[in-house]
C-alpha cells in the first residue's frame, strides 16, 4: 500500500515539474559546483562593485555601502547548460533595477566581469525589469566562495553561465562583446527554453 502511495506522489511531482523544466534538463537536489579556475577569496574590506563604461561617471560601492542598498529575497529555478536544473533556490541580494536606478546610458549591451577574470555578456534589457540581482546569500547563509561569494550575479531566466560568480562589476557597452564561453562555442544569448546551448542553436 505504501509503495503505491509513494508512486502516485512521485508521478504528480513529475507532472508538476515538467512545465518548469526546460528541454534537455534534469533536476538535481544538491548544488553542483562549476568552475573554470581557482576559487578567488575576496576579503570583504577589499571587495568593490562597479558600474562602468557608457555612463557619465562610474558608480561603485564597497561592501559596507553595497549592503546598505535595499535588498530583496527571491526564489528561482536555475538551469545550468551542463543540463542540471535546481528548483526553488533562495537568494538575498540587490536587484539590478535598484543598482541601475537613475543611470542614463545609450548602451544596449553589458559585460559582467569577475574577480578571477571571467566575463559574460548580455543585452542590458536582460538585466532590468526584475530579471537580475547581485546576490550575497543562498538559503539565508552568506554565499560560499565556491558558489561565487562574496557576491554573484543571478540572472535565472538564462543558462547559469550568464550569472557570473565573484562579480566585480558590469560594463555598459554600445557593441556586444561576447564573453569567456560565448567566444568559444557557447550561445551568445543562452535561453534554456529555446535550448540555446551552442553556436547555431
Amino acid at each position: 500500500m505504501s509503495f503505491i502511495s509513494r508512486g502516485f506522489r512521485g508521478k504528480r511531482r513529475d507532472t508538476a515539474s515538467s512545465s518548469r523544466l526546460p528541454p534537455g534538463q534534469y533536476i538535481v537536489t544538491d548544488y553542483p559546483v562549476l568552475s573554470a579556475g581557482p576559487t578567488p577569496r575576496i576579503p570583504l574590506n577589499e571587495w568593490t562593485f562597479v558600474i562602468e563604461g557608457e555612463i557619465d561617471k562610474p558608480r561603485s560601492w564597497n561592501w559596507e555601502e553595497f549592503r546598505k542598498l535595499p535588498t530583496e529575497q527571491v526564489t528561482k529555478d536555475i538551469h545550468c547548460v551542463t543540463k542540471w536544473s535546481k528548483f526553488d533556490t533562495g537568494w538575498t541580494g540587490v536587484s539590478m533595477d535598484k543598482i541601475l536606478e537613475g543611470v542614463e546610458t545609450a548602451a544596449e549591451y553589458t559585460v559582467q566581469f569577475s574577480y578571477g577574470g571571467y566575463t559574460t555578456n548580455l543585452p542590458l534589457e536582460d538585466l532590468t525589469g526584475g530579471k537580475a540581482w547581485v546576490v550575497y546569500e543562498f538559503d539565508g547563509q552568506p554565499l560560499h566562495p565556491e558558489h561565487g561569494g562574496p557576491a554573484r550575479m543571478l540572472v535565472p531566466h538564462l543558462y547559469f553561465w550568464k550569472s557570473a560568480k565573484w562579480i566585480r562589476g558590469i560594463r555598459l557597452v554600445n557593441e556586444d562583446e561576447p564573453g569567456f564561453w560565448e567566444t568559444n562555442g557557447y550561445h551568445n544569448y543562452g535561453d534554456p527554453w529555446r535550448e540555446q546551448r551552442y553556436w547555431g542553436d
Partner: protein
Amino acid sequence: MTVQQSDLKLDGNAIGGLLREIFTMEMTAAEGTCSSCGKVHAVGQVEVYMNAPGVVVRCPACGQVQMRIVKGGGRYWLDLSGIRCLEFSSE
C-alpha cells in the same frame, strides 16, 4: 585577493583522451609555451578544470588560460590562443 587552490583542479593527463580525439595522437608529452609568461610545460603538467561548461587549461606557472575546449552538438571548439607554440612529435 587571494586565490585558494580548488579541489576541482586536475592535471593535464585528465584530458589525454580528449586531446587524442582532436589531434588523433598522444598529446600529454607535447610541450606548450605559455603566451603570457613564456614558460614551457608538458601538457601532462598543466592545470585542468573540467567541472565547467567546457575544459579550461591553465598555465601551472602563471595561471593564465592556455586552452578552452568545448565539445557539444557534434562539434568541437578549440581556443589555443593562450599557447604561443605547441611542440609535439610527428612519430
